[in-house]
């Protein structure tokens, strides 16, 4: 059974002992707590064989054939490591999805290090894997992404600020680029997710934030590439494995940027490590 909680001076993270999933996040400095569940899902990629449109999902086009993603596993097998420097809960969801929930002793951010792949395609279904954070934050159909790493823009479900939108893609039509961060908020709480790479993301349900992690597709989207997005390599002949990190920060909305701006800076301009064998002269 996973631990009930891990915590440092700044954050407390609880887990559901029955499922092994995250269940809440607290900022101990600001004394705020949100319900937070996180899990991994996959959208079945559209193969273009659809009465409404013959557009397959591909490199340029994200187009799931259903708005409801498949849950990869409702529970996670867990393993816990608790030391004075770092506390980790290692979650195993499937042979191709695992994660480490990590809290360093002096950190104000919770690290989620996800590992996804190789995506199985022996069922002949293209897969677009996401992680979804479901919270108690009352988002009222709004969420926020940075479009270019500088300006953060407000996004509203099924809405565009400069024209009347007739939404035809309930999921993909509400996905936006995330270059360094995305957040959801209400009057009390703001949950900011800082990413280590550009990703796609959306807030399809109130209180939730989902982020695309990995894709493996079987059809070309007929936009000029002429190949499906189905990459492998010498080391990973059965499909690529991807590992990345999300950093979560929970704050009051007026002061949230004080936390996520330096956090994102530290991710984008990380320290460079070099090594020297033996004694340094």
């Amino acid at each position: 059974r996973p631990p009930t909680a891990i915590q440092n001076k700044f954050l407390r993270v609880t887990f559901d002992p029955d499922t092994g999933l995250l269940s809440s996040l607290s900022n101990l400095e600001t004394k705020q707590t949100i319900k937070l569940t996180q899990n991994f899902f996959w959208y079945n990629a559209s193969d273009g064989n659809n009465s409404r449109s013959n557009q397959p999902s591909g490199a340029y086009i994200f187009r799931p054939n259903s708005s409801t993603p498949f849950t990869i596993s409702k529970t996670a097998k867990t393993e816990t490591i608790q030391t004075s420097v770092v506390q980790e809960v290692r979650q195993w969801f499937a042979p191709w999805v695992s994660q480490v929930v990590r809290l360093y002793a002096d950190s104000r951010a919770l690290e989620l290090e996800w590992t996804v792949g190789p995506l199985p395609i022996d069922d002949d279904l293209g897969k677009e894997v996401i992680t979804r954070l479901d919270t108690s934050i009352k988002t009222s159909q709004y969420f926020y992404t940075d479009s270019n790493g500088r300006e953060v823009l407000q996004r509203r479900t099924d809405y565009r600020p400069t024209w009347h939108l007739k939404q035809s893609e309930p999921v993909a039509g509400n996905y936006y680029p995330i270059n360094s961060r995305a957040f959801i908020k209400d009057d009390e709480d703001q949950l900011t997710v800082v990413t280590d790479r550009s990703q796609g993301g959306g807030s399809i349900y109130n209180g939730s934030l989902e982020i695309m992690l990995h894709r493996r597709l079987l059809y070309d989207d007929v936009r000029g590439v002429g190949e499906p997005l189905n990459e492998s390599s010498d080391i990973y002949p059965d499909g690529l494995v991807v590992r990345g990190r999300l950093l979560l920060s929970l704050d009051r909305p007026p002061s949230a940027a004080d936390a996520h701006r330096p956090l994102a800076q530290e991710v984008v301009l990380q320290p460079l490590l070099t090594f020297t064998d033996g004694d340094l002269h």
Partner: protein
Amino acid sequence: EGDSQTMKKAMAVAQHHDAVSGTEKQHVANDYAKRLANGWQHCQVLVSNSLAALSGSSAERIYCDNLNISVCPLTESSKKFSVNVYNPLARPVTWPVRLPVNGTAYAVSDASGKSVDCQVVPVSTATWALRRNRGSAVRELVFQVQAPPLGFTHYTVSLLQDEHPPPRVEH
């Protein structure tokens, strides 16, 4: 002789063609990756030359590009090594470092010789599966480093206890 021009050109090609979006044929993606890897090799020489000039040390610098999957031949096999930390931000940062190791206990000291709290944790089974026979570290050494603004510092790591002799790894 190092340079950043090779990386600059590779980045220019990659950005012009939206190279990271997967909107190119696989052999083209392979070519972008090769150009970027070659660019980084040239940058490594440039960085080594700069740090050698600034630190006054011409000791060979090793780069570990696969730390995210707990692979670094030097830290896996060495009984004593130093970690140089360059901080590109204009403010001091505290940063967690995780190094693949095979020993069970290590001593870490900062540039002034002061001891730093460190812990050794096992490498996760997911990482074992991910690295596919690259690297042999069974543990990771975790500690926090503090680096000055737009500057560098170093930490010394010494093996205290070795449960099993580390496997021979060629650098």
